[in-house]
């Protein structure tokens, strides 16, 4: 008798716990964001999408941009050009620290206006110093300032990318032309990759980006500059929506000093090859073994 009553009590307790656990498990659904569609929830990983799936996803994302931002945009799935390996070099002798590159990135890649976000940070360092930790990024005096040098830092598209290996769900990977990309619809926003990047190149969307409709760059790609959702990671993609169509990156076109050299490292006649073969180039934090595709050089 006593036994039965204990069992009943336990059962009742179990049921209560079960209900609580069930309620807890379902809680995220109650907090279902209004702008999350079933299609988006069920969307597969970028690499698992067939061509037809991809087209459907692109049209849905275009519609979402129209609904949420009032902007008519074209989002393409721009794929790598065969036999192209991208490389980028920056001449530290001529960079004046004007941040025109960072500004161009901001506009080209549909960054949040309020935070003036950009994939490029320009470090101001004392001449002769290589102590980057002593550099600053928040200068606002006229440039170039006497006794200072400037070092723009963006994603180095490492061949041995720490951000890629730490991602628990393969939401970020290296493409055949060397660009490291993020599937914004697969990323869960854990920010492991941000912590892993020794160049501090990744940015997190703390808020839903705010951009006036007329300022949105309508020429977009799935893996690059489409407007990112809140809570996901983003990074420089060497403007793949431009460069995979043969165009120069936006930061290069904006640079008034011609400090930037971009191209196909497999082409022996390319500008980037000439720089790599004839200038004394170096990479940042070489000792970490990340094998960047972004090089720095000096004229002399």
């Amino acid at each position, binding site marked *: 008798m006593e036994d039965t009553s204990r069992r009943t009590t336990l059962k009742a307790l179990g049921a209560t716990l079960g209900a609580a656990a069930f309620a807890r498990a379902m809680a995220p659904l109650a907090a279902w964001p209004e702008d999350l569609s079933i299609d988006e929830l069920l969307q597969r990983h970028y*690499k*698992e*999408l*067939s*061509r037809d799936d*991809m087209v459907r996803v692109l049209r849905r994302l275009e519609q979402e941009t129209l609904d949420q931002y009032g902007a008519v945009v074209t989002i393409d*799935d*721009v*794929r*790598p*050009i*065969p036999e192209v390996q991208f490389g980028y070099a920056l*001449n530290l002798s*001529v960079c*004046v*620290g*004007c*941040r*025109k590159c*960072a*500004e161009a990135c*901001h506009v080209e890649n549909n960054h949040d206006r309020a*935070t*003036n*976000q*950009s994939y490029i940070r*320009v*470090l101001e360092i004392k001449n002769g110093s290589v102590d*980057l*930790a*002593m550099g*600053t*990024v*928040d*200068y*606002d005096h*006229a*440039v*170039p*300032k006497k006794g200072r040098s400037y070092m723009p830092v963006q994603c180095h598209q490492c061949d041995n990318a720490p951000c890629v290996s730490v991602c628990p769900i*393969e939401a970020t990977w290296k493409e055949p032309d060397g660009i490291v990309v993020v599937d914004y619809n697969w990323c869960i926003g854990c920010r492991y990759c941000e912590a892993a990047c020794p160049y*501090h190149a990744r940015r997190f969307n*703390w808020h839903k980006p705010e951009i006036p409709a007329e300022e949105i760059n309508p020429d977009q790609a799935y893996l690059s500059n489409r407007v990112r959702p809140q809570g996901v990671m983003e990074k420089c993609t060497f403007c793949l929506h431009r*460069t995979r*169509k*043969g*165009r*120069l990156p936006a930061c*290069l*076109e904006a*640079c*008034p*000093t*011609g400090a930037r*050299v971009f*191209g196909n490292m497999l082409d022996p006649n*390319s*500008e980037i090859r000439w*720089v790599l073969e004839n*200038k004394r180039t170096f990479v940042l934090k070489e000792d970490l073994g990340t094998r960047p595709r972004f090089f720095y050089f000096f004229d002399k």
Partner: protein
Amino acid sequence: MPLFTALTLLLACDQGFVDPSREYGPPVADAPAKVSRVHVPTSLGAVDTPRRDIHGAPIGVSCATCHAGPGEDAIVVGDEGNPEQMHGTIELLHGGLACDACHEPTDRRLLHLADGAKIEMAEAMKLCAQCHGPQARDYQKGAHGGMTGYWDLRQGERVRNHCVECHAPHSPKPPQVQPAPRAVDRVVFPASETH
């Protein structure tokens, strides 16, 4: 253990595209290379006057407006006795050079090379290259000077900046500029000097 093997296999399969045709875009057709041309700015062969346009930029006057033809004195319009009036806006800060080091004395619409050969204003880069060899070489190799357009000349043309678009010929050192505003980051990296 079998579970572990299965998981490893699963992860290994997960690398490639399920639809392999999506891995690359179409190959680029081997089209004849498009040109990489140099943009020739209108400021070449003109001098700034003290007058400003509605944007505040100085209004330029073509050299040929006054120096109408060959001959040092071939001035048809203007203040012959007072060249300062037209040339007063020029601040000459170019390695101690005098006007005639570059400008052709017998025809003010032209420049001349070191050997005296006369060249058009539009060809000024030949003249720059005579003193600035390393820069001219880097320019030719695409490692000096800004540009816009295509890195891939199979797909489109490229427009290179002219020397004088960044370096005013009379005072070639670019002036200081106010930088574009910085991002407002949650993380300030590295720590600011002021902290």
